[in-house]
Every structure is written in C-alpha cells, then in structure tokens.
C-alpha cells in the first residue's frame, strides 16, 4: 500500500468515514429514476420498482406502501394523498401484487436480508392535511392496515419468504389504533415506526416524539435535510433506531447518511443509492 493510501485509510478510520450500509427501502413504492412524485403510490410505479435490478440482484430491500383513509366516503385507498380525486385503488391492491412477487423464484432483497414492508397510515382524511381522523375513522383505518398485513403475511408464509412489516405514521393516535386492533394471529414479525418530516410551516404533520410515549416505537424515520442534532439525540435516547426518508438525493443526503448512519434509507432513487452504497 502506498503511503498516501495509508494516510487516507488512517484519516478515514479516525473520522469513522467508512461506507455505511443501510438497507434500501423504496419510498412511496416509486423509486425508479428519474424521480417523479406524481407517480408516488401508483400501481405502475410499484410494479416497476419491484422489478428494479442492478447487476442481477434486486436493488431494494423493502418497499413503502401508503394507505389513505378518504373520509368523504369511508374508503381505504392506496394513495399518497387525495390531490388526485380520481384515485380509487384499494389499499390492499399492492399487497396482492406483492404476494405474487414473493411467489416468484429468486431473491427478493439485495443481500438476502428480510424484506421490509413499511405500511404508512396517512394521518389525514381529505385534501386538507389538517383534516384528521375521527375515532371511528382511526379504527377503520387500523383494520384496513391489518388487512394489508394479513395478505402480505400469508403470502410470506406460503412462499417461505423472510418478511417483516412496520406500521408507521405521523399520527401516534393511528398507531395506538393499530395496536388496539391487533388480530389474534400474527404470522410474521411487525413493529412500529414514528415519522418526523418537514417542520412547520412547510408541513404540519410531524408530532414531537414525546407524543409517541407509551408506544413500542422501534424506528424513527426522519428527513435528513431537516433533522437537528437535538432530534438525533432524542431518537437515540428513546432507544429506537434512526432511518431516513427524502424525495431527491443530493450530496447533502449522502453526507447525512455518512454522518448519522441510519439503519434504513427510504429513497426515491433506489439504483443511485445502491450504486453509491456498493461503490
């Protein structure tokens, strides 16, 4: 090894700058480049994302599926929001297709780690993000989430796939409703995650972590561009793991992953992230 390389290795070692290796989750089931948020939580993007491969391996280690309770007609949708009022795909639709994916031959994750499904329960019920669930809507949304769980879990068992499911939400009350509706049998592991997004006034969905008190939160998913060191410390002190979500990857994103070393990254550019991680 040349002297310069030795020095570089020493600097990297001292700085703790070795390449991190979080698992790669497909954000909003729409993670093929180029980014196009208009296709978030749509079945065509979901199918394309599941099929992403790089050098003969699946690019992703898991996928995020959003469920949205539309309050006006009491329907549980597969949707990011109802900005498109023509949206009518049932929330269970991608789970049915995921079951078929599990039944295919071949690996379903990049490194044969368990396939992680993030089931996000959207925290509002109309186009207005301040329009929150009634208690009854919370219960029905929670039951919808368990319906999705059952389809995925049954498929995982039938196909002998190693699958884990995380219920996550910006709303602690929704997670409490999910826990309250836990079915008698749960054939695959599940966990709970809190979301910390853009701060107000950019977005009004995030709750402080103290609002999740009493919930068995094992994952706090944060937007790295808006995370403060205090938030990071709060996550660590809560005993949960840190993960990231974001929309478009910049060098600031890579720097944050190097600095904070999340256990999972929920990205809209899965191939870019995989190629950066494996470089």
């Amino acid at each position, binding site marked *: 090894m040349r002297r310069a390389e030795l020095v*570089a290795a020493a600097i990297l070692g001292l700085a703790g700058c070795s390449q991190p290796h979080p698992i790669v989750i497909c954000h909003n089931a729409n993670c093929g480049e180029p*980014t196009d*948020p208009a296709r978030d939580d749509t079945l065509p993007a979901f199918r394309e994302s599941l099929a992403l491969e790089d050098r003969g391996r699946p690019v992703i280690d898991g996928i995020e599926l959003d469920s949205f309770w539309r309050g006006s007609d009491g329907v549980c949708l597969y949707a990011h929001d109802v900005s498109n009022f023509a949206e009518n795909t049932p929330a269970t639709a991608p789970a049915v297709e995921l079951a078929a994916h599990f039944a295919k031959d071949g690996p379903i994750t990049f490194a044969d780690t368990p396939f992680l499904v993030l089931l996000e329960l959207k925290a509002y019920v109309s186009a207005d993000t301040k329009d929150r669930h009634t208690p009854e809507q919370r219960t029905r949304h929670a039951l919808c989430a368990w319906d999705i769980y059952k389809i995925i879990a049954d498929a995982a068992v039938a196909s002998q796939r190693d699958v884990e499911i995380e219920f996550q939400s910006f709303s602690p009350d929704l997670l409490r409703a999910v826990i309250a509706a836990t079915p008698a049998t749960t054939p695959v592991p599940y966990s709970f995650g809190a979301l910390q997004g853009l701060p107000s006034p950019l977005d009004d969905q995030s709750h402080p972590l103290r609002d999740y008190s009493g919930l068995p939160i094992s994952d706090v998913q944060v937007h790295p561009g808006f995370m403060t060191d205090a938030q990071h410390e709060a996550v660590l002190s809560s005993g949960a793991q840190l993960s990231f979500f974001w*929309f*478009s990857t910049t060098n600031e994103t*890579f720097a*944050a992953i190097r600095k904070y070393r999340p256990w999972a990254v929920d990205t809209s550019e899965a*191939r870019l992230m995989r*190629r950066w991680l494996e470089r």
Partner: protein
Amino acid sequence: MAKHLMYGVLAGVAIARGGTPARADAPGASGTAAPAEPGTALHAGLNLRADSGAHPVRLIAGIDTGPFDLSLTVDPMFLIDDGQIDTDLLATARVSEGGWGVLGGWRTTAIGILGGRQYQEKLVLGIGAPLPRVGDLPIRTRWTLEAATLLVKHGGGLPTDWISFAEGRDFVDLINFGMFITIELTNAPR
C-alpha cells in the same frame, strides 16, 4: 496528485506575492509578474465551510477587478476517497463601497457510484462581504451566504433527472442553503 496540489498552492503564493504564476516547480522560479491591470488583483487560498453543501476544505483562486470578481474552487478532498468532487465557478459583482457583492455561479458535484460518477449540477446564488483584514498581511477573507439549487443530475449510467416545480416534493430537497468563507493571499494594495 498530492504533488500537483502542492504545486498549485505554491503557485497561489507566488501569485499573491506578485511573482510569476507559472511553473512554481521551476528551481528558483521567482520571476516578475506581468503588470496587472489597474485595480486588478489576484488571489488564491482556501474555501472553507462547515455545512455539507460541498467538501469543507477546498482550494480557491481568482481575479478581482474591483467591480467584478471571478473565482474557481477546486476540491482536493477527493484524495480521502469519499468519491465526491465539488468544483465551483463563481462570479461576484460588487454592489457597495464596503465590498458587499452578489454572487452567481455554478457548482458541479461529482458523486462516485458503482460503475461511474453521477454529476449534480447546481446554480449557486448568494451574497458576500469582506471580513476585516488582519494588520498588513496580504490576506483577504470573505464570507458568503449561498442558495444552491440542483438543476440536473446526470451520468453514472442513470437517467438524467431535471428539477421540476410541479409540486413541493419535486424540489424541496434540491434547494439548499449554506455558508462559506474564503481565506486567500492577495496582491491587492491595502
């Protein structure tokens, strides 16, 4: 490569002292610089920042005509092999007697990925101001606040991705603010 960087720094020092900018590696090189235009000064030194908009320590050199300053910042930190190279070409137009200026330019960040590099092209806009000079030292320092907007990503075998403003999710991550200071040797008169 480290040798080339050392030559670059030596050349910068030579420029600041009014010596020839060429061939810093030439033994005993200390020739006379061509006369600068009236009011024109050369500068070279460090571009430093604490945020993650670019590498924290880079090398900068440029020319200051008084009303207008043009600088190039290059990145030696790719030597530590994090796969990233940040290069800036920035122009500053002076807007006050005190030296405040508005800044515009371009930053190319090359991100090393498996199979190549992705290039992230950013429009950089900002404001800057001089910091007080220290004694009679031929050193100039400036502070700059920037907004860097990632306009397009390309390369690395991935599809080209342009910024869009269709909805917030399209661009919220692509506009980032940062600050940097430059500490440079200069041949500007006091």
